[in-house]
């Protein structure tokens, strides 16, 4: 029997998930105890970092093992401004964080990604990992930024005369910023730009043959991710109240990769979900088995990577929707005269 094409498409699940989570996030502080509000805020902030990673990997196909570098450097910059120059305004520090992330990403992109020959995947991965490692070691040894101890006891962010204390206030700040970033990325990735990225991810050479300057697209995405990581780095520093070399290094960088993979790379909601779940698992695991929980965490991550490389989102969302469709939805094509003779 002839059915019009439109009704054969599956119902989209991702928007449902997104909306549900957004609504839950908006009302959560009313139900949760203080500690859990803080916990969730931290999840939002790290989720933003994971999102920045997924932008680079899931959408542009570059494995950046060094996202924490931008995160940490932004955090350090904001912390230095706050402690040495007493600047605490959120309107200054967060943009500064973002800018630092952007600039550092630009430098790294220049060295690792751009250039005459496109680098291979492993080089980008190891190059970013190494950068993260090197900067962490430098930070550990530099007493101006506190060395191993980092910069403790950061003052709170202020908006005018208003102190942004951690708790519901910071929660909503983080949520709003996350939502804005999310929305922005959603528009970007569903646009023509996103279509180009998908093409680059799938078959880079072909895109180059089409005339797209692939390197520029990659560079742009990388810098954008750096910007996002920088903003989240600034937020994190002031939410936690300190910056340390651990916020720069490969441990956090790799953790972010795992967050994104756990939740589902190649989607926007996946990394955020992944961050929340991994942090929750870590928290509860450490309560149950004080001395051995990292072993369980490692095994858990291994299981996910092995058996469900599409991440947990892969449980709920079909592959086709995950990879995504681009541009405005096309109207179902009217049945052509020939279609009537085709088998149903």
């Amino acid at each position, binding site marked *: 029997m002839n059915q019009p094409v439109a009704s054969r498409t599956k119902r989209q699940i991702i928007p449902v998930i997104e909306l549900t989570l957004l609504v839950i996030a908006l009302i959560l502080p009313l139900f949760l105890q203080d*500690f859990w509000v803080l*916990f969730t805020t931290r999840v939002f902030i790290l989720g933003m970092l994971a999102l920045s990673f997924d932008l680079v990997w899931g959408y542009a196909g570059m494995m950046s093992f060094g996202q924490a570098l931008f995160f940490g450097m932004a955090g350090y910059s904001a912390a230095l401004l706050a402690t040495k120059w007493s600047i605490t305004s959120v309107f200054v520090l967060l943009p500064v964080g973002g800018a630092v992330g952007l600039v550092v990403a630009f430098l790294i992109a220049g060295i690792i990604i751009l250039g005459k020959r496109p680098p291979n995947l492993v080089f980008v991965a190891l190059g970013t990992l190494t950068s993260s490692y090197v900067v962490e070691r430098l930070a550990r040894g530099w007493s101006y930024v*506190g060395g191993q101890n980092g910069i403790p006891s950061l003052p709170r962010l202020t908006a005018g005369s208003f102190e942004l204390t951690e708790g519901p206030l910071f929660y909503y700040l983080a949520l709003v910023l996350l939502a804005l970033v999310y929305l922005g990325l959603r528009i970007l990735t569903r646009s023509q730009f996103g279509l180009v990225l998908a093409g680059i991810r799938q078959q880079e050479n072909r895109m180059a043959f089409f005339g797209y300057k692939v390197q520029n697209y990659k560079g742009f995405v990388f810098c954008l991710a750096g910007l996002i990581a920088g903003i989240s780095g600034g937020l994190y520093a002031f939410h936690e109240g300190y910056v340390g070399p651990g916020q720069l290094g490969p441990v956090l960088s790799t953790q972010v990769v795992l967050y994104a993979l756990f939740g589902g790379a190649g989607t926007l909601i996946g990394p955020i979900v992944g961050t929340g779940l991994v942090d929750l698992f870590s928290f509860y695991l450490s309560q*149950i088995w004080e001395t051995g929980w990292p072993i369980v965490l490692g095994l858990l991550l291994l299981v996910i990577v092995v058996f469900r490389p599409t991440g947990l989102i892969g449980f709920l969302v079909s592959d086709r929707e995950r990879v995504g469709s681009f541009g405005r939805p096309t109207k179902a094509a009217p049945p052509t005269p020939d279609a009537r003779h085709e088998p149903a």
Partner: protein
Amino acid sequence: MEDEIKQRLQSYSRRLFLQRAGLLTGMVALGGGSYIYNPKGTWAADPIKVGIATDLTGPISWGGIPNSNVAKMVIDDINSKGGLLGRPLQMILEDTATNEQLAVTKVRKLVTQDKVDVVFGGITSSMRNAIKDTIVNRGKTLYIYPQLYEGKECTPFLYCTGPTPAQQCDTFIPWLIKNGGKKFYLPSADYVWPHVLNAYARTVIEKNGGEVVGEEYFPVDHNEYSATVNKIMSNKVNVVFNTTIPPGVAAFFKQLYEAGFSKNGGRLACVYYDENALNITPANEIEGLASCLDYFKAVNDPYGNKIQAEYTKLYGTKNPFTAGSAATGMYRGLRLWAVAVTAAKSLKREEVAAALDHAKIADGPGGPSEVVPGRHVKMNMYTAVAKSGKYEIVEKSKGQVMPGECV
């Protein structure tokens, strides 16, 4: 057919996932799953909550495990003698995992969720710096830090019960000059503690007529010390005042030994080296190594021996009770705090702090100790020398040594 099976599997795993998500939400809502040690028996009043935040996993777990063991031991002991102010102590243990990012969340839980009355913990200075703000400023809770460190921690409501550079150098360095020589070399790990300790040590060395021939800093996992060893040998250095830490220290000591340093009469000194650390290298490589701590098993004082016996009975010998792992500081801190709480007859931070500012205990591992102005503790210090893999006490301080911090 295949499609059908695949679909069934997918929907099954989907259901499973949603089920598990539901369970997890339930756990979150109830806040379940804590490592809480509840006081035994029935009590008339609510428990006093003591938060212990230490590194049970990660590279510093060798210190965190004895810390948590000691805490449990002391808290059980206090409970068996009637608790404090008629209330039992409840110990809430959190693993900071040698990961400062994780630690802040854990400590936050102690302070915001469990609403503990005091937090003991942190071993490395970087951990202390990461968590102190959450505890003391944002959490408005008392914080007691038990480990030997570089000093200069003067935050109000933060008490340090481990040795400071003054305590480790003032009596030790004169002994080193007398029993080693005047030429010192300072190979160090590159972080705050060695830098500050070295600066202090240098003044004491020079005041006592010694000379610092060299001072060098390495990443903690550096394992090539040939250049340094060479400089030490060629400058005929008498005393190597070492502050490199594991893992690098093993390679350093070995390379120093192989170059013939101790064979030629050189004296190795390392102020964090306790009985645990003796395992790091074979005994012959550290023969003659001198250390200065607030307690060694070799002190053989009755109180210390009693603690050792009890500790070994409860926890075995894998993670022993030593001074380098902050276990002695933890013991001391808990006892001093208990005294303060009893004296203040309250758990309000300001009142306990006021009492803690001059609390003293008549006996402890290594002897009595007392909190002095500046929120640090004066205590006996012992100089010990490693002989055939065991320590021998060669000097005891003339009374309790002042910490010299924050005055």
